Structure formats: C-alpha cells, structure tokens
C-alpha cells in the first residue's frame, strides 16, 4: 500500500458539493411548476425569480431595505448574545441560581415572540426598537440555554487542575469555562442568528417598518408571487451567508476542538 501525501483541496471540494446541493434543489424547484405539480402562478419558476432578483440587485432601494433588516438583525443578535453569555455563564456556574431560575426560564422561553409584538409596539411604538425587542427576546433563549449546558460541560480533571493551581475566578472563566462552552456557544449563536433573521423579517412583515419583511408583505398582498419568492430567496441567501461567516469564525476559534481538528486527520 503505497500512499503518498496529497493535500486535497478540501475547501474547493466543499464549495463544489455545497453548490451541487443548492443546484439540485433549484432544479427540483424549477421542475415542480414545469411538470405542473403546482401552478406556476403560486410557485413561480426559478428562472423568473432570478430575473427579478437581478432587477432588484440593481435597485439602490433594495440594498437600503436590506440594510435596514440587517441593522436590526445585527444589533438584536449582538445584544442577545452578549446578554445570554453573561447571564448564562452566571446562572450556569452557580447551582443555586440554576435551580432557582429553572422554572422561570422554562416559563418564559416558550412564549412566542410573535405574540409579544403588540406589547412591543405598545412600549416602543411602530419603531425599530419594537422589532429589536422581539428579536432580542427570541434569540436570547437560544444562546442562553446552550451556554448553560456548555458551562456545565467542564471536564472534572480539567476543573480540578484549575482549582489546584488556584486560578482566579476570572482566569478560570476565560481559560477553562468559556473554551469548554465555546462549541455550545457557537451552535447557540448559529441558531440565534437564524432566529434573529426570521424575527427581523417577521417583525417587519407585521409591524411594517421598512425592510425586507415589508417587501415580502407588500408582494404578498399584491399577489405578486415572483416578488414574494424573490425576497424569500434573498432571506435564505442571507441565512447562508451568515452561516458561512459563522463557520469561518468557528474554524478559527475551535481549531483545537475534536469536531474541527477531527477533519484534518485520516
């Protein structure tokens, strides 16, 4: 068995496969109305959607709306993540707090943010803050729960090591607890990023402040299915983009972790 060292261009293959997956999906989509499974009036052809997208991409207004949506997304996600990491770490580390807050957390978590929109409007009016409140509320829990579990995952021997060397609380946090919780946190943030995007758009749809969501709602109420799906596709693409960014961060920050380094061997 003569094997020679070949560094395969992994990333290239990865991109190719990913594109293949997306293309396959688009082909299926194109086929559904073509074969008449669903009337093309309700599920338009992919080709039409791309034509519309090309048109939108040349429109400054489109980018401005996208900007609105992404601004509330980014602010909401950042605030939610920061709050969830801080609170999650504190609650996760202090058994008393964890037990005492358990019921309240479980009570608050399943309250749908969509149901809270009127209250948000009541508090902030038809403003971005109202949408932000909703985004933060929904994405906070995603990160919070992951952090609580992650913080509890510290290895017993690793913790004893920290204790025996008398690491200060801060050092223990930054060198032991957070690295352990980081894989959990990354998953949480990726979940929260999608949730925040969904809510940024839903809030715009319902509250009606400017952004992608309002465009979706406008297309919808006009019965313009090509426009509707074009914006939905933009949403999906945004999700994809956000994920690529987070994957990149993850590969950087988790290069030591089994899930990332495991890919390098064999």
């Amino acid at each position, binding site marked *: 068995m003569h094997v020679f060292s070949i560094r395969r261009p992994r990333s290239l293959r990865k991109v190719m496969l990913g594109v293949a997956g997306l293309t396959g999906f688009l082909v299926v989509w194109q086929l559904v109305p073509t074969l008449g499974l669903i009337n093309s009036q309700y599920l338009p052809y992919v080709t039409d959607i791309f034509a519309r997208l090309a048109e939108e991409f040349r429109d400054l207004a489109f980018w401005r709306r996208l900007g609105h949506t992404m601004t509330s997304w980014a602010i909401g996600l950042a605030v939610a993540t920061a709050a969830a990491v801080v609170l999650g770490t504190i609650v996760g580390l202090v058994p008393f707090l964890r037990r005492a807050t358990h019921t309240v957390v479980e009570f608050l978590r399943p309250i749908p943010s969509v149901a809270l929109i009127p209250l948000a409007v009541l508090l902030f009016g038809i403003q971005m803050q109202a949408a932000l409140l909703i985004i933060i509320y929904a994405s906070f829990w995603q990160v919070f729960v992951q952090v609580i579990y992650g913080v509890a995952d510290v290895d017993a021997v690793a913790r004893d090591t920290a204790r025996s060397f008398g690491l200060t609380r801060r050092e223990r946090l930054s060198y032991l607890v957070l690295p352990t919780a980081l894989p959990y946190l990354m998953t949480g943030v990726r979940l929260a990023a999608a949730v925040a995007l969904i809510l940024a758009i839903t809030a715009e749809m319902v509250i009606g402040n400017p952004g992608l969501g309002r465009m979706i709602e406008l297309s919808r109420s006009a019965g313009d299915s090509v426009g509707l799906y074009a914006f939905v596709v933009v949403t999906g693409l945004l999700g994809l983009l956000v994920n690529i960014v987070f994957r990149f961060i993850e590969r950087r920050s988790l290069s030591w972790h089994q899930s990332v380094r*495991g890919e390098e061997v064999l």
Partner: protein
Amino acid sequence: MSAHTDRIARRSRGGGLGRRVAAGFLYSLGLPFLLLVIWGLASSSSTNRFFPGPLTILEAFRETWIGPAFVDDVLPSLYRLALGIAASIVIGIAAGTLIGLFRPLRELLEPLLEFFRAIPPPVLIPVVMLLLGITDTMKVVVIVSGAVWPILLNTIDGVRATDSVMSETADSFQITWWERLRFLVLPAASPRIMTGVRQGLSVALILMVISEMFASSAGLGYRIAYFQRNYLIAEMWSGILLLGLVGVLLAATFGVVERRVLRWYHGIREVNRA
C-alpha cells in the same frame, strides 16, 4: 481547630428524601412566586390596561381555559404539539447523525439547510398549506420546520465531536455500524442532543402558536391571536400564561427523561463536587 466532618458525612437516605422534595419544591416555585408578588404590587400601582395584575389574569385564566375551551382549543393544540415534537426529535436525530457522520453529505446539504433555516415560517405557511391543505398535518409540518433545527444542529455538532480515541477503539474492534451508532456515536453526542431537544421543545411550542395564528379557526395560538385582536388583554395574558405552563410542564417531563438518558454524564459531573 480541626476539620472533623463526621456530621456532614452522610446524608441519611430515608429522612433526606422528604427534605429534598421540599427543597426542590421551594426552588422551583420560590422565584416564580416572588416575581408574582412583585408584579402584583407593580400592577396595583399602575393603571396601564395592557399590563393587568396577576389576579385579573388568574380570573381570566379560570374563565377562559377551564371548561370546554380546554377540549376544543387546548387539547388539539397539544396533540399537534406532541406530534410535532416527536417528529422533530426523530428527524433531527436521524438526519443529524447521518449528516454528522458523513462528511460529503454534510458538505452537500449544509448550504441548503442553512438556506431553509433562514426562511421565516409565516412565509412558509402558505406554501405548506398549498401542498398539504389546511390540515393538522400542515400545522405539524410547520412545527417541525422550526423545532427540528436546534436538534439537528446540535446532533451534527455532537456527532462530529466524538472523541478520537473512542472512535479508534470502535474501529479497532470492528464494531458494526449499528453498534457503533448505538454504543458510541449516540451516547457520545447525547449531551449535545439533549441540549438541542430542550431548545426544540420551546421552539415547537412557539411554532404551534404561529401555525395557528395564520390560517386557523381554533387552537391555543388562534385564541391568543383572537384575544389580541379584540383587546381582551387579560385573556391574552392568560393564554400566554397557559403557554408558559405548558412550557414548564414540557421542561419537567424532559428533565426526567434527560436525567435517565444522561445518568452517566451527570454522574461524572457530580463525582468531584467537593
């Protein structure tokens, strides 16, 4: 000066049980009770109609949910919720395991999954409705379309993080594919899977409401939307209260299951807690 610790040495198992249950009770109800009191005090001094006091809401709760509404609105919702959760767990774990184990599959599907994950369910509902009609199936599908992600993502990440020495052990002993799954991959990923399931539970509940807020004429979510539109503020809050209670109930049930499934995991954690 000595550290004789004879007295704290052993928790007596029999008498301690009662006290543990009492402590558990206190822990789980202490903070909620405290918050209720604070809220009651705050609302009695404010006159904002949109934030009624707890007593008003409890009254509304009793009138709204205890009675036929429970059978007509709540039970069907819970039934769909249960179906949705079960389907999400099965799909999430099964697909997550496959995707986590097979790198090409992951590379093939990841962009597609991320694409779908970002699409807001309210936009998805009309399409699903078109395919499945205005049926329970459609609502269950909507629930699954949201609740499956935390489970799926956590499973993928958990499966990918299986310790290298452990999987080499499995390789070297020629463990069959099925045994590998059953005795290595799933247990190793189970802490992550459980995190995902716990997330998924509340997301499922949220989507149950959303699936009923659009295109429906009954159900808990529909009721809440209805109260909202009609400014029946106390009733709306009582619906949210009910959702919260369902959430707590789900979490409690899940807690029991988790303690069973992750007994080894919690065992390790408790070992050196001096």
